[in-house]
Structure formats: structure tokens, C-alpha cells
């Protein structure tokens, strides 16, 4: 049955198991959700532009806060990073595809259905309003009786499952399917940060899964895990959430660090400074990420010893991060820097991420954090690290690898315009928030009085957010223009890069490598092009081969059906009387899909 599926058209996208197509689908879905998150952000900023504003009600504002946070983290940065993992990992390590191609498709479809379920809450006017961290007993049945919080609980549960399946897939791919000669310390740095990210995902997601199951039991079956009346503790949710929460923020930033570490060497025409140190510091950040979670809970009365230890661990994490920043600058030092849009984004990442990291170091100390916690200073901090850091780097990655994915360049002029609009709008929005935080404006307030001294900075922040929105529009125009005109064709080695994917044609053939590559040293592709004293050599590009000769995994319907089954199980929890029938039906569909999957010719 699988052999007769067409190679183009909607069916081919629904049944694809090719890591490149799945990567493109991840990216497209991520940008759709960026649009949703962006609109939510603009609505919030417009509501906060002037005191006692009535643009949105308090309930809607709390939903906007929750959905903006959840969408940007779980539905934009993580899937866009997954798009880069999917597209680049097999190409960079010389593998034909990922370890489990159909499981790769499964994790995409589960992610998409989870994202749609989460955003469907707007359609039924039940958008979750507990904050992206959903603290315990405000989100219990007693204080949030409607199904709004269930949308968040099941949305994040499904997204967690998708990320877990993808993480297992990529960990096995990276550790088990590298080409000949590519030892661990000869892998591109982006593959290292991807590896650490997958380890973090694999170890952090089960904790949030347990916490979400406990919350589902509390809300659906009336158990009292987080209900103080029944002996439960509200603090348990915070502990379990942040044991996942802090590795989660490293999951968001490590891929961005990997992308920047790929872009900087290419446009400085120099190798990454201190490659092994960068590898060890990424691993150190990943490992320490598990020992710092309580710095989100300094004001919940942990007691002096816990505060002292967690603040020490949090400060310790600043050391490997600092080492990486100095290594990036040393990569630029003595190079030949070319100002392409991707390079502009990468260089601005260093500056903005450093500033965000330093404002974070400030509230790593509990006394200062007792003033910063839950104020706009923290909002400024994590936007500098997440927006100025991850989002800038991801857009850099888009402009850097777009020619390789589609075969033609994005328009550099529009790219630079978007970059400067982002830089101006971003700083205009989030720098004043440091002052707002120091002047005591708490987070998640839907309005404020006119006499509290917060009027000027809120207005400036709102104007900045509109400038950023303009930058977003510029990006859409750039994509549409490039897709329509396809003017500037891209060769195989678009930017004279250093990693294996530049040896393939752009766009790369479906079978990736006609001849299995062999790697002798780090940045092997650069060494094929230049001798030590800079003399040019002719590198071995991958020859074109008739695709029929290469064995490709067959497209399959089962991933999307299995994902739909899991979705139906979750939907069952939203109907009080007939709910369990729907869930059982979902289980049956999942089981049938599993058996269909097993007995299918791969």
C-alpha cells in the first residue's frame, strides 16, 4: 500500500517520513504559532499602554499572558529549533535519515495536534488563564472550575510527548548514525548542542508528565495532590514544574547557541575558537541545569540553606555561559567579518544574550531576587535572553540555511531592514522594563493606576512592540517576495561553509548522500577546500545519482493516524458525561494504528 503514494501534493506531505520535509513542516507551523504569539503580545502591550485601560478584561488579559508564554515557548522556539534539528542533523553527520523515520513524522503530528488543541481554547472562549507555569491551587478545580486549564494541561502534556519521542529519535541518530571517521569530538558544534538539548528533553520531560498527570487527577477525579485542605502541598507543583522548567529554558537557548556557533565561523572565515571548551561548557550548562531549579522559588520560603545552595549553583552556571561568550568574540577576532543578515543576527545574539545573562546573574542572589521576583525586571531579563537570544539566533539560522533548504537566497536588503527593526523595537520594548521592575511593577497585572509612576515606561514599551511587529511584517514580505520571484539561485556551497551539508546540492536530494562521506578531521569540508596556508583546493561535491538506486523509507499514513488517536484520548477529558467513551475510542484508534504501524513494510 505504501509504495503507490504520490511524491508531491498534500498526500505526500501528510505521509512523508523524510527528515527534510518534516523539518520544513516544523518551521512553517512554528511561524504560524509565532503569528499567534505575536498578536497576543501586541494585545497585552496595547492594554498596558496607558493606565486603567479597558481594551481587554482581566480574564482575557490573564489568558493572553498564559497563551503568549506557552505559545512562544512550546509552539514557536521549540518547534523552530526542532526544524533545525530535523533538517540539519542527518546532513551534518552524514546519515541517510534519522534513526526512526516514521517516529520522526509521529512526533511532528503529535506536536501539531497538541498546538491546535491548545489554541482551540480561543475558539470556545476557554483560553487557559493560569500563567505559563500554571501554579497549583489557583489552577485547581476549586478556583478554576471551567475546562480552560484543562486545555493547558492536555496541550502541554501532548507537546511534551511529541518532544520526548523526537528527543529519543535524535539522541540515537547522533550517537549511532555518524559517518565514517566522525568521532564525537569531530562533530559540528551545532550537533553537540542538539545532543545536549535532547538529553535535557529526555530527562526533564518525564517530570512535567508526572506533574501534569497529578494535576489531571486533581481536576478530573478529585484527588488532592496539590489541595492543601486534603493534606497535599501547593509547593509540590512548583518543585516538579521547575525541575522541568529550568532545563526547559536551556532547551530553548542551547540550539540558538549552536546556530550562532555555526554562523560566526563561516562569516569570519575562521574556525570556532576553543571548540572542545565550547563542547564541555555546553555539557556543563546541560548538567548544572538540573541543579538550579529553585531559583524560581526563592520567595516561597525555602529557608536559608536551600537559598544559599541554589544561588551558588545558579551563579556557577554563569561561568560556562561566560566562557562561551568570550569564545564567540575570539572567533570574530582576527577574522574577515562579512555583514550578511545571518551574521548581523548572530552578532546581535552575543550582545543581547550577554546583557540578558547579566541581568539574570543579578537576581541569582536571593536578597535581590526578593525584589525582582514576579516583577517586570524578570520579564525584561528573560525577554533579553529568549527574544534577544534564541529568537535572534533562530532568525539568523533561517537566513543562513534558507538557500540550502529551498535553493535560492532570501533578499538581503529586506533581511537587514527586518534586523534593524527588530533590534530597535526589541530594545525599545524591553529595556524600559528593567526600570518598571525596579519601580515595583508586578508581572501579569492587567492594568495599573495612573499615580504609580509606571506610565512613561509602559508607553515606551508599547511603542517598541509595534516597531518589532513592523519587523515581523518585513520578514513575511521577504518570504513572499523570495518564494514568488526565486531570483537569486543558490549553489551547493552558498556561504563557503565548514560543515558537511554544504557538500550537497541545494535543495539536497531526498536520499541525502549519494556516496557515504568520510571525515578525517573537524570542519572537514573546510579542509577539503583550503590547505593550511589558504591555497584553494577543489572539494568533492556529492555526485547526482538516480534516486531509484537508493533505498528510501516508504511514506506511511500511520504516524498521523496514531497522533490523531492520542488527540482523541485527550479530547475525551473535555466532555463530562460522554468523555470516557471518547477517550476509549481514542485508545482503540491508537492501538489499531500501532498494529498497522508494526505490520507495515518499512
Amino acid at each position: 500500500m505504501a509504495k503507490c503514494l504520490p511524491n508531491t501534493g498534500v498526500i505526500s506531505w501528510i505521509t512523508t517520513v523524510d527528515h527534510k520535509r518534516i523539518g520544513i513542516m516544523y518551521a512553517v507551523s512554528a511561524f504560524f504559532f509565532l503569528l499567534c504569539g505575536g498578536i497576543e503580545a501586541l494585545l497585552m502591550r496595547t492594554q498596558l499602554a496607558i493606565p486603567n485601560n479597558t481594551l481587554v478584561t482581566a480574564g482575557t488579559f490573564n489568558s493572553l499572558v498564559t497563551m503568549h508564554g506557552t505559545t512562544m515557548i512550546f509552539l514557536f522556539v521549540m518547534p523552530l529549533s526542532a526544524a533545525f534539528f530535523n533538517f540539519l542533523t542527518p546532513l551534518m553527520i552524514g546519515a541517510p535519515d534519522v534513526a526512526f523515520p516514521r517516529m520522526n513524522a509521529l512526533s511532528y503530528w503529535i506536536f501539531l495536534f497538541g498546538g491546535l488543541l491548545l489554541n482551540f481554547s480561543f475558539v470556545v472562549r476557554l483560553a487557559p488563564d493560569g500563567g505559563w507555569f500554571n501554579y497549583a491551587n489557583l489552577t485547581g478545580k476549586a478556583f478554576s472550575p471551567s475546562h480552560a486549564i484543562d486545555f493547558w494541561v492536555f496541550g502541554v502534556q501532548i507537546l511534551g510527548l511529541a518532544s520526548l519521542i523526537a528527543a529519543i529519535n535524535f539522541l540515537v541518530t547522533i550517537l549511532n548514525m555518524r559517518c565514517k571517521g566522525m568521532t564525537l569530538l569531530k562533530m559540528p558544534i551545532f550537533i553537540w548542542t542538539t545532543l545536549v538539548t535532547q538529553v535535557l528533553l529526555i530527562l526533564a520531560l518525564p517530570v512535567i508528565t508526572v506533574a501534569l498527570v497529578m494535576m489531571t487527577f486533581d481536576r478530573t477525579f478529585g484527588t488532592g495532590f496539590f489541595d492543601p485542605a486534603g493534606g497535599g502541598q501547593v509547593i509540590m507543583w512548583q518543585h516538579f514544574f521547575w525541575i522541568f522548567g529550568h532545563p526547559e529554558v536551556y532547551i530553548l537557548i542551547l540550539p540558538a547557541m549552536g546556530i550562532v556557533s555555526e554562523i560566526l565561523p563561516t562569516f569570519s572565515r575562521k574556525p570556532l575558537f576553543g571548540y572542545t571548551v565550547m563542547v564541555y561548557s555546553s555539557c556543563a550548562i546541560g548538567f548544572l541545569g538540573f541543579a538550579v531549579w529553585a531559583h524560581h522559588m526563592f520567595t516561597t520560603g525555602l529557608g536559608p540553606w536551600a537559598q544559599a545552595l541554589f544561588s551558588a549553583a545558579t551563579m556557577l552556571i554563569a561561568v560556562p555561559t561566560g566562557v562561551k561568550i568570550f569564545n564567540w568574540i575570539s572567533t570574530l577576532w582576527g577574522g574577515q567579518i562579512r555583514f550578511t543578515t545571518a551574521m548581523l543576527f548572530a552578532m546581535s545574539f552575543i550582545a543581547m544574550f550577554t546583557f540578558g545573562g547579566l541581568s539574570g546573574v543579578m537576581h541569582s542572589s536571593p536578597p535581590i531576587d526578593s525584589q525582582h521576583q514576579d516583577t517586570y525586571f524578570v520579564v525584561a531579563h528573560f525577554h533579553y535572553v529568549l527574544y534577544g537570544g534564541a529568537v535572534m539566533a533562530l532568525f539568523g539560522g533561517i537566513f543562513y540555511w534558507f538557500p540550502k533548504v529551498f535553493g535560492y537566497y532570501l533578499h538581503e536588503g529586506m533581511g537587514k531592514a527586518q534586523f534593524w527593526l527588530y533590534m530597535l523595537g526589541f530594545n525599545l520594548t524591553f529595556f524600559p522594563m528593567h526600570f518598571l521592575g525596579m519601580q515595583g511593577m508586578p508581572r501579569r497585572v492587567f492594568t495599573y493606576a495612573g499615580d504609580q509612576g509606571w506610565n512613561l515606561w509602559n508607553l515606551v514599551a508599547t511603542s517598541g512592540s509595534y516597531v518589532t511587529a513592523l519587523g515581523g511584517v518585513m520578514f513575511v514580505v521577504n518570504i513572499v517576495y523570495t518564494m514568488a520571484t526565486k531570483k537569486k539561485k543558490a549553489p551547493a556551497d552558498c556561504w563557503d561553509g565548514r560543515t558537511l551539508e554544504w557538500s550537497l546540492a541545494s535543495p539536497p536530494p531526498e536520499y541525502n548522500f549519494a556516496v557515504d562521506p568520510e571525515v578525517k578531521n573537524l570542519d572537514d569540508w573546510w579542509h577539503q577546500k583550503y590547505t593550511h596556508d589558504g591555497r584553494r583546493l577543489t572539494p568533492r561535491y556529492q555526485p547526482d545519482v538516480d534516486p531509484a538506486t537508493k533505498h528510501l523509507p516508504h511514506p506511511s499514513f500511520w504516524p498521523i493516524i496514531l497522533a490523531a488517536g492520542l488527540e482523541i484520548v485527550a479530547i475525551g477529558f473535555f466532555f463530562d458525561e460522554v468523555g470516557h467513551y471518547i477517550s476509549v475510542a481514542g485508545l482503540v484508534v491508537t492501538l489499531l494504528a500501532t498494529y498497522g504501524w508494526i505490520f507495515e513494510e518499512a
Partner: protein
Amino acid sequence: MKPKSKAMGRVACLLSASIASLLRGAGSFDEHPYSLSASFKTPMDTLAGLTDWAQGINYVYAITTVVVAIVFLAVSIPLVYAIRRFRVSDEEWGTLVPPKQVHGNAILEFTWTIIPVILLLFIAVPTWQIIFRQPEKHQVPANAMRIEVIGHQWWWEFRYPELGITTANELHLPEKTPVYFEISSADVIHSFWVPQFGGKMDALPGKGAENHLFFTTPVLQHPEKKGGEYYQGQCAELCGLSHALMRFEAVLHEKAEFERWATVFHNPPVVQTDLEKKGEQVFMQCMSCHTIEKTPSADLEKQLLAMTPPAHKAGPNLTDFGSRRMIAAGTRHNTAENFHDWVHDPSSIKPGSKMVSLGLPQADIEAVAAYLRYSTAKTY
């Protein structure tokens, strides 16, 4: 000077001129809410550092800011220099021979690992000093005044066990006295925070989840002024629809004035005009949620507390409502017009508020307004 950098130079001096005029001009429009001077040193300024604890925080704050500034310069100067110095135009980028392929330098790596560790110690040591300065429950000095803070969904309840006082939304404090707060919540997680006095402490629901806070109240800035000084506080943890409107005020009194307040607080409401007498009758309908000391509502509260399990009234205590500056937990000023809007339709002012609008006719609202705003007013 390459043409591009000349343009940059002109932009830079334009920018600095406009900022200078802005700052110089700031003095002229002080009272304007959007002025720079109105946007610093605001009523909830976290750097005010009035209490000993807040000064401890500012001590660590100052050191950390210096260290952070040093690191920021150590990063941004080489970064900007490298970008300007090693930039190459697009045309000649591909033609040049690639630069020296430098792979790493062990000494450099060692230095920028050790130096940050040393710099971080500058932050860590004062941090630990301040952390362990907060006393544990058993180390609290005996003369400290105990105050119980209980967070409700969207208002604050303050109890003074030694003085037998239960009040709401206005935290009366004597100056220069050590105070020991026991912070808990009656429903969801809140966070008790007076930015000018120091950091916040979460109010967690549940037995045994009480959090403790200890500091010495600040000195009065204008001792000659009677009636106490007002410092704003706000809930800092998302607690539902009206989280933004769950504010309160700490009122700092001179010691003797505080003693007078504590004694006068227990006086029964003084009902003079017949409008107030009518208001007292109308207040009978509010008795199921609110209590005023030495009135039938207080006896009702005793009966409710005597039940097993003890039933607590849903609304705040209104014993000294008349002398409060703000109503509805710091949301509106205590004026007749605001009071009318609040009683007429509470959820329009505080979304999701548990106070129901009893649909009182206009005359009853005016009566209960007179009773609550005048007869309960305490002069001290």
C-alpha cells in the same frame, strides 16, 4: 574617515543632544505623569531601602551591579572593537586569502574561567551574609511585634494577636520597632510585598505552610506630620482575575500615635445622625460577610468561629473603615462617589469580586455610606 562612519558620527551627536535636552528639561514638567522624574523614585521604588532588611538588599544590589557592569564592559568593548576592526566589505570577502585558522588558546580559556568565578564570589559572599541574617522562627527577638498576614482573593487581612486587632488592607505600624510577620493565605498563592520596606514573601495556603518575614520598621521621614505616612504594597503572585487590584498600604505612625490607634480601634461605631442610624440597620444585610467590633456582627462572627470546623467570614473586617484612605483593597480612594460605585456594582471595579451587589436602593446606599464612612471613623 570612511563616508559611512561620518554619517554615524552625525547621528551620534544628534542623539546625545536630544537626550541632554530631555534630562535638562525633566525638571520643568515634574508633576506631569509621563516625565522622567515621575518615572523614578515612584511610590513602589524597590531601591528606597527604608528598613534594615531593604538596606541589606541594596548593599548586595550595589555590589552586583558593579560586578555586572565590569563584565558587560569586558564583553562589549572587545566585541564592538572586533566587529569594526575585522569587518570586510562583501565584494572582497570571497577573494581574500582566509585568515590564520586559530583553533584555541589554553591560557585565555583559563583566564576567562577563573576571573568570572572570582567576580562571582564578590556577589556570592554578601548574598550569603544577607540570607543568613534573616532570623529563623526561634531566633526572633522577644520584643518583636507579631503580625499575621492572610491573603484572600483579592484583599489582605492583618491580625495583631497581642493587641487583639483584626483589620484589612491597611497595615498600621509603629516606627523603629522590630516586626515579625507570619504570612499565609486563605485560598490561593499570594505574595506579600511592600517594595520600599524590602523583598516579597509568598503567602501559601495550607497548615504548616506559613512563611516568616522579620525587619525593623523605618524611621518617619516627616515626624512632625500627624496621621502617619503611607507606603504602597501589592500582591506579586498571579492569584486570579483581580490580581492587579489586590493592593494595600502600610501606614507608619510615631510610637505614641500607634498606641492611640490601637486603643481607639476598639471603640464601637459612634452613631449620631439618623441617616447613620438607618445605615446601621442596612448594615444588618452585610453582617454575614463583614464584621465591625462591638456590634451584633461581632457576636455573629464569634458564633461562626465556635462551629466545628470554624467558619470564617468571607469579607474583610470594617471596624476602622471610616478612617481608611482607600477602599476595595487599595483600588479606589475612600470618597462617597467611589463608595457608591463599589457597593452598587463591585465586579465592575474588581472583576470576579466575591462581594455581591445586594441591589440596594439609592437611599440605603447613602445611609450605609454615612454609617460606614463616618460612624466607624476613628480619630487618634
